[in-house]
């Protein structure tokens, strides 16, 4: 490609890079801080909880309430175990090797000659008499300060059938007991991947059944990268908007557009721990404004009311003014949620009412999935608006990519209205949960010749268990992650030859 940088342009680029580095917190924070959003992984993915860390935050594990205070200032990826000592159960940090007693057992298995293991389960009878220890015995052990591991060892030695099991069966038994009596909590950093996976596991309907591999495809197909101007229709709680913002890393813009007068809810964006640089790139603009001609739009901007800042108390909710939402409102949410009960485990909009666990794969039907509490409404009501200069640029040059995630909406109309807003040669990716509307949309695009390279794809994802002599795909699989219609917008008219 032609390298026609002027000296000025290079200087601008360098300055912007420096600015990015100096003013924003590290792109990749490695340790937690007060107020940060985290993902807690309990017992290797059995239970996933979003939380906001503060000294007062707590988490319920089993029937114990543990303080999340010990998690502050720790690196992401740290492992914690629930202590069994007298008094308040608490989370203490441990290394992965001590909790991975199973790892040593695995190595022992390799040393053993598997072929000579003649044990099987023909003599095992399931009549609940194998275990000698009663639950009272176990409680007594707990009160005497026995660690989780010690309890597990005691259970094993008191099991009449343990020795008769195969090595693998013993391993499985031990793991199961560990999960109950010595649960572990893994502190994970929220990212597009982990947030999407968690939602897909717990509340898939909230993100329109968008699986993590499907989300990844949308980002690649729409060529989301540095300095991109991405047009997004996000009706799945902000999942796509957040993922795009993560990839843009404080450059370019995400124009989250909406039909009607109110932006769609985007609570999920809060979970990403974005710094102000990244947040500033997310803007909300109604389709009606985008579709206006440049002159009409400028005219209406001039005659609009003057911009006003939202008051700290965030009382005004339904203001139709062009106003900016200050980033400080995130502290407001934290304070508000602390006032709800003692816990500020704000895993989700619905879950701030209870801290009950949602065990997979039973799904999330226990709680009222109230989608919009007053707290989130205040924040996302009007959203940040795009600067006038940027709007002008979008209208003259077009967006560099389009992503639509409106799994229950009428895609045909959406695409018809938004495709003309793309630059020529800009790619688009339309996600939908139903195939037929996408097929109809693709057919229309083919006949109208607005786009080429059209394709409907269905992503397929399968996970494997890889263990010595026990490698196979997992027994459970997600067979549905949605469909994507992708293509590239083109300029159909042929210019007169020079």
């Amino acid at each position: 490609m032609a390298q026609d940088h002027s000296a000025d342009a290079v200087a601008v680029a360098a300055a912007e890079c420096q600015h990015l580095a100096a003013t924003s917190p590290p792109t990749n924070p490695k340790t937690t801080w007060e107020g940060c959003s985290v993902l807690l992984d309990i017992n290797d993915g059995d239970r996933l909880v979003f939380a906001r860390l503060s000294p007062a935050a707590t988490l319920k594990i089993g029937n114990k309430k543990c303080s999340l205070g010990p998690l502050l200032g720790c690196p992401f990826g740290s492992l914690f175990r629930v202590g069994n000592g007298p008094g308040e159960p608490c989370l203490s940090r441990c290394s992965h090797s001590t909790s991975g007693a199973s790892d040593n057992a695995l190595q022992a298995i390799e040393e053993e000659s598997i072929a000579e293991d003649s044990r099987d389960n023909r003599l095992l009878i399931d009549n609940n008499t194998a275990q000698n220890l009663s639950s009272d015995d176990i409680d007594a052990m707990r009160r005497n300060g026995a660690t989780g591991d010690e309890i597990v060892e005691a259970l094993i030695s008191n099991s009449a059938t343990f020795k008769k099991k195969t090595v693998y069966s013993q391993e499985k038994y031990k793991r199961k007991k560990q999960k109950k009596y010595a649960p572990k909590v893994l502190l994970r950093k929220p990212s597009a991947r982990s947030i999407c996976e968690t939602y897909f596991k717990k509340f898939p309907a909230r993100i329109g059944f968008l699986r993590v591999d499907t989300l990844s495809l949308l980002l690649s197909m729409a060529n989301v990268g540095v300095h991109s101007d991405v047009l997004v229709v996000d009706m799945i709680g902000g999942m796509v908007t957040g993922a795009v913002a993560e990839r843009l890393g404080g450059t370019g813009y995400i124009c989250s557009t909406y039909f009607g007068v109110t932006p769609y809810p985007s609570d999920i964006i809060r979970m990403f721990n974005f710094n102000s640089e990244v947040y500033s790139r997310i803007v909300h603009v109604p389709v009606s404004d985008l579709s206006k001609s440049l002159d009409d739009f400028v005219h209406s901007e001039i005659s609009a009311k003057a911009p006003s800042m939202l008051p700290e108390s965030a009382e005004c909710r339904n203001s139709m003014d062009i106003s900016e939402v200050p980033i400080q409102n995130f502290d407001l949410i934290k304070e508000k949620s602390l006032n709800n009960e003692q816990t500020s485990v704000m895993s989700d909009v619905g879950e701030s009412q209870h801290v009950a666990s949602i065990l997979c794969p039973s799904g999330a039907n226990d709680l009222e999935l109230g989608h919009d509490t007053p707290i989130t409404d205040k924040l996302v009501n009007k959203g940040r608006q795009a600067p006038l200069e940027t709007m002008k640029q979008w209208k003259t040059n077009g967006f560099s990519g389009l992503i639509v995630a409106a799994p229950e909406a009428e895609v045909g109309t959406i695409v018809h209205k938004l495709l003309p807003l793309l630059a020529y040669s800009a790619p688009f990716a339309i996600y939908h949960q139903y195939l037929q509307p996408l097929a109809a949309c693709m057919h229309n695009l083919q006949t109208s010749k607005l786009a080429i390279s059209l394709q409907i794809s269905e992503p397929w994802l399968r996970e494997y268990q890889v263990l010595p002599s026990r490698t196979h795909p997992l027994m459970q699989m997600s067979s549905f992650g949605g469909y994507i219609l992708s293509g590239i917008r083109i300029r159909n008219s042929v210019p007169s030859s020079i």
Partner: protein
Amino acid sequence: MLSLDPSKRSSLQRCICDGDLVIVYERHDRIKAVKVQKGLDFQNRFGVFKLSDWIGQPFGSKVLSNKGGFIYLLAPTPELWTLVLSHRTQILYLADISFVISYLEVVPGCLVLESGTGSGSLTTSLARAVAPSGHVYTFDFHAQRATLAREDFERNGLSSLVTVSVRDIQGEGFPEEFCGAADSVFLDLPQPWLALPSVRKMLKQDGVLCSFSPCIEQVQHSCEVLTSGFTDIRTFEVLLRTYEIREERMTTSEADHESPVGPMRKKRHCTPHDVDDSQGERTATTVTARPCQESRGHTGYLTFARLACS
């Protein structure tokens, strides 16, 4: 390919200049990369195209040949590049590439180590993901392929983001200078377990590794070695199933003499209008979709792991 200069935003807003790389789209399965040079021609089944005619047109334009045939000129993106690049080795495709980048949690500013470079398919997407402030250090033990990859990256304007070196990662590991500096590491090697001890030293705390292996035996061996020092070990397969759409006249009329299971009509010949059958009756058509008959069955297994916190 990427707009690294904020004042210029996306390359899509530029018009085609002399010396630019253009992606020529003839058909969904016929795409080529062409370097625009004044005075030269591009020839294909549709005729001869004068490259000078392309200069000054916006990307996304339709251009005609001397015989009236047409093609589309597209701006290069990492996705299109994967489809047109010259295969010096087997490459990774969209489904694997997009999943790897998401799962490795590559964001702007990251430092990524990769081996082997191969034909640079994944590397190009990694460059986009780390831009503008990150970097991809990629290693290949084959000197000639490393050179060809380096030339490709330069031609695509990615040299400020990608550094190619010749090194045998399986034998020597990654260079010491990257110890504790890598956010993510990607391996596409015949014996990745040999490189794992080095990866352990390279990764930052909670950093992510991905190893791509076509064979399950390789995966098993790698996973066994990963149990020391790594956690959250997961292995996946990703594939894409594509659909074809057609406009079908579904009828049970006896007057319909066509065989019910006819050959697939090419998309270009579909008409949106109602079709008259031989009896003069009008039967409505419906747009239907069904999976393509052939698809890729396997590329490789993707094994991910995080460096365990000490």
